[in-house]
């Protein structure tokens, strides 16, 4: 029909009121929260993270998602390791291609493929 399906095409001009006092208030609280979590590190005695990367995942992982048209831009499929109790879980997630470690990994993979 007549092209009225595209809700995203609607252009709305909105004005947003600024509430500087509330903004500053939030700013202060936010910094405090961050500060506390950074400082918390010093007192905690945590074991060093030294787990190996599970090898079995290497084949399970899809290398690249090529979605140049998506609104997020280029994306690469990564596996996120999580734990549920003591059970390890692996989930696929799409990461933007422009994150520095994604670029690194990608370059390495390409180099390996050329070898």
């Amino acid at each position: 029909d007549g092209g009225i399906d595209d809700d995203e095409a609607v252009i709305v001009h909105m004005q947003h009121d600024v509430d500087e006092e509330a903004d500053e208030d939030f700013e202060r609280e936010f910094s405090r929260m961050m500060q506390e979590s950074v400082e918390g590190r010093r007192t905690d005695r945590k074991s060093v993270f030294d787990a190996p990367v599970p090898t079995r995942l290497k084949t399970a992982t899809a290398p690249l998602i090529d979605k140049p048209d998506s609104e997020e831009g280029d994306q690469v499929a990564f596996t996120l390791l999580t734990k549920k109790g003591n059970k390890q879980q692996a989930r696929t997630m799409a990461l933007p291609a422009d994150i520095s470690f994604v670029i690194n990994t990608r370059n390495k993979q390409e180099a390996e493929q050329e070898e």
Partner: protein
Amino acid sequence: GLDDGFDDQVKDLPEHACKYCGIHNPCSVVECLACNKWFCNARLASNRGSHIIQHLVRARHKDVRLHPESPLGETILECYNCGVRNVFNLGFIPAKSDTVVVLLCRACSNPMGQKDMSWDLSQWLPLIEDRSFLSWLVKIPSEHEQLRARHIVPSQIASLEDRWMEDSNATVDDLNKPGVDDEPEPVRLAYDDAYHYQNIFGPLMKMEADYDKKMKESQTQDEVVVRWDQGLNKKRLACFVLPKLELGDVRLAVGDELLLRYKGELIKGSWEGHGHVIKIPNNEVVLELKKDERTPTHCTHNFTVDFVWKATSFDRMQAAMKTFAVDQNSVSAYIYHRLLGHDVEPQTLKITMPKRFTAPNLPDLNHSQVFAVKSVLQKPLSLIQGPPGTGKTVTSATIVYHLARMNAGQVLVCAPSNVAVDQLTEKIHQTGLKVVRVTAKSREALESPVSFLTLHDQVINNDTDPELQKYVKLKREYGELSSQDEKRYRSLKRNAEREIIQNADVVCCTCVGAGDPRLQKYDFRTVLIDEATQAAEPECLIPLVMGAKQVVFVGDHKQLGPVILNKKAAKAGLSQSLFERLVLLNVRPIRLQVQYRMHPCLSEFPSNMFYEGSLQNGVTVQERLRKDVVFPWPVPETPMFFHCSYGQEELSSSGTSYLNRTEATNCEKVVTRLLKAGVKPSQIGIVTPYEGQRSYIVSHMQFAGALKKELYKEIEVASVDAFQGREKDYIILTCVRSNDHSGIGFTSDPRRLNVALTRAKYGIVVLGNPKVLSQNALWYQLLMQFKERNCLVEGPLSNMKRSMIQLIRPKTKKE
């Protein structure tokens, strides 16, 4: 029958909706594990951070969980190594040579002491960036989604967080709730969002509902005398006169429910029966009883009548406002923002214009009508202003014809009143489209010109299902079915209803009727609302929130608006229609400009006063002169006059209305003259703004009229409001107000005057006190026009003389 309303569905936000703004896309929300509330990752135009971050910071909560339906599934964000859950302390760590990541806290990602070199700890990437979650972990809602959500401001967030300390279930709406004795908040021109809209209109509509309920329920009438009758459908009818109705103390409409009770010596115990009003000819109420069990038809006296108030229509309005806010698919984004008065770039629909604009079997359109049809078809939202007699119904039907041909789904056609819906239904049916008229169950027994198009009748006459036919017959013969059969009958009926609606091109119902449970499963993308200026905003919303993408409002904001009984609510703006608000928001109505009703001398004043002189006459003087009717018009070419009289007004016996005996006497004389000249009673209308005068005239004409009583009985005497949308050959307007100081009340509303003056085709007689009326600026202008045309007269009808009264221009009030 079944009552409507009991299974109306009210849409609610899901549990996982952001407690601040209502966004509920599972990819965009997370749950705070400390308080089990959900928040989104939206950050509407600010550097304050997203809603979830604002909550975590203000409430000092730290742990969150992703939604089960998000890409990562139900996941608690915690350190892979030590299990710490503080999101302010977490980040992603990639493997050195693989596409694998884990979440680690800051402490665990310290590279000191690391032996295995498979993780690149130097690349730690915090979860929170720029005061929101990484967008690829928790999606940031689109700008469009954010615009459509509730617009909460930081101060509201702060107060809400404060409230949650005491009451964990508090909502944003609770922040805005007015105290019991507070004045209602007035309507606005524009609203931040649909929640804001609901927060304004919800309480106003509730005030109106409470008032209506109180009024209705306090109107018990004792000592009613009943005459028993039987309808064509064999149902029991009770006929009676209600003095309260005659006095104008209460409003009663066809379809309303009444409770009739008997408590007397003629039967043992007591009896009561519910029924619906099916007609009110000359103030006699005809009530069709729902059941005819032990009906004391041998009794006639000692009955009591109670008014039964129904919440249905108000409930549907409230539900529509809620749906408007909560359901993203209720209306298109464009319609959403336009209705709320936001600044939206205009849209034009890409459509193929029909070659011919006139619809089959409807009259050819004039220039301004064609223009209206053309513009409407290519716009998602339009207003058509139809001044009196300009062919609003034909234009609307033509538009609906084209819309139905151009679009796949059914067109929904509504109006606030049943009369208007029926008229439009009939015209649309003429074009050959498949039309179904959905009426309230309480109106199914009523006769109307479009009975054969009602869903109810189409189901009954549907001969494709013999089993259904069997039950229909049984029901007709025995009145009731066994519970087993009734169940089967209902299910067959529902199927038949679905089939009929699905096959229709157009569905017609009242605005409130659009909330009928039988229509709730359907989407209506194209909606036309006639008489849109006579509906309160929430009423108009009911048909809109069923998926509207293209909307046409037809009405005339220069004629009467919606009737709001509660004065406070009316004053706060509930009596302003959506159409009118859109006009104030600079949506330009397309005006129909050629009128086909009034003698040109009758259209002149309304055109100049209310339509900037733009009304053209589609009828000639010759077409509107009735030479056969001998009547003492002061100037025969201009069949109108204002008759001056100075008799005092009186308060009516109810104490809430006015009457004027002099004008009533004059009215009877004019009527008698018209009848003697051969005018049929049905072609005469007597218009009065006061109920007191209305009932006085009805009885006075029968008592004092020189001709047969029956003739006078057939003449319609009604309020201006009741005549809106209709016409008569001759109109007599009695103004009633005549006093030295207390003003002209009702009569001063320009829109009411416009309606009163534009009902007549061939002639108008105005009865009033020129001295009193001319104190009003508009009436002064009207009286001057009568005077200039030698039509301001006084004296007996047989010997009227030009009045020599000096009219004094009223002082304009200083602003």
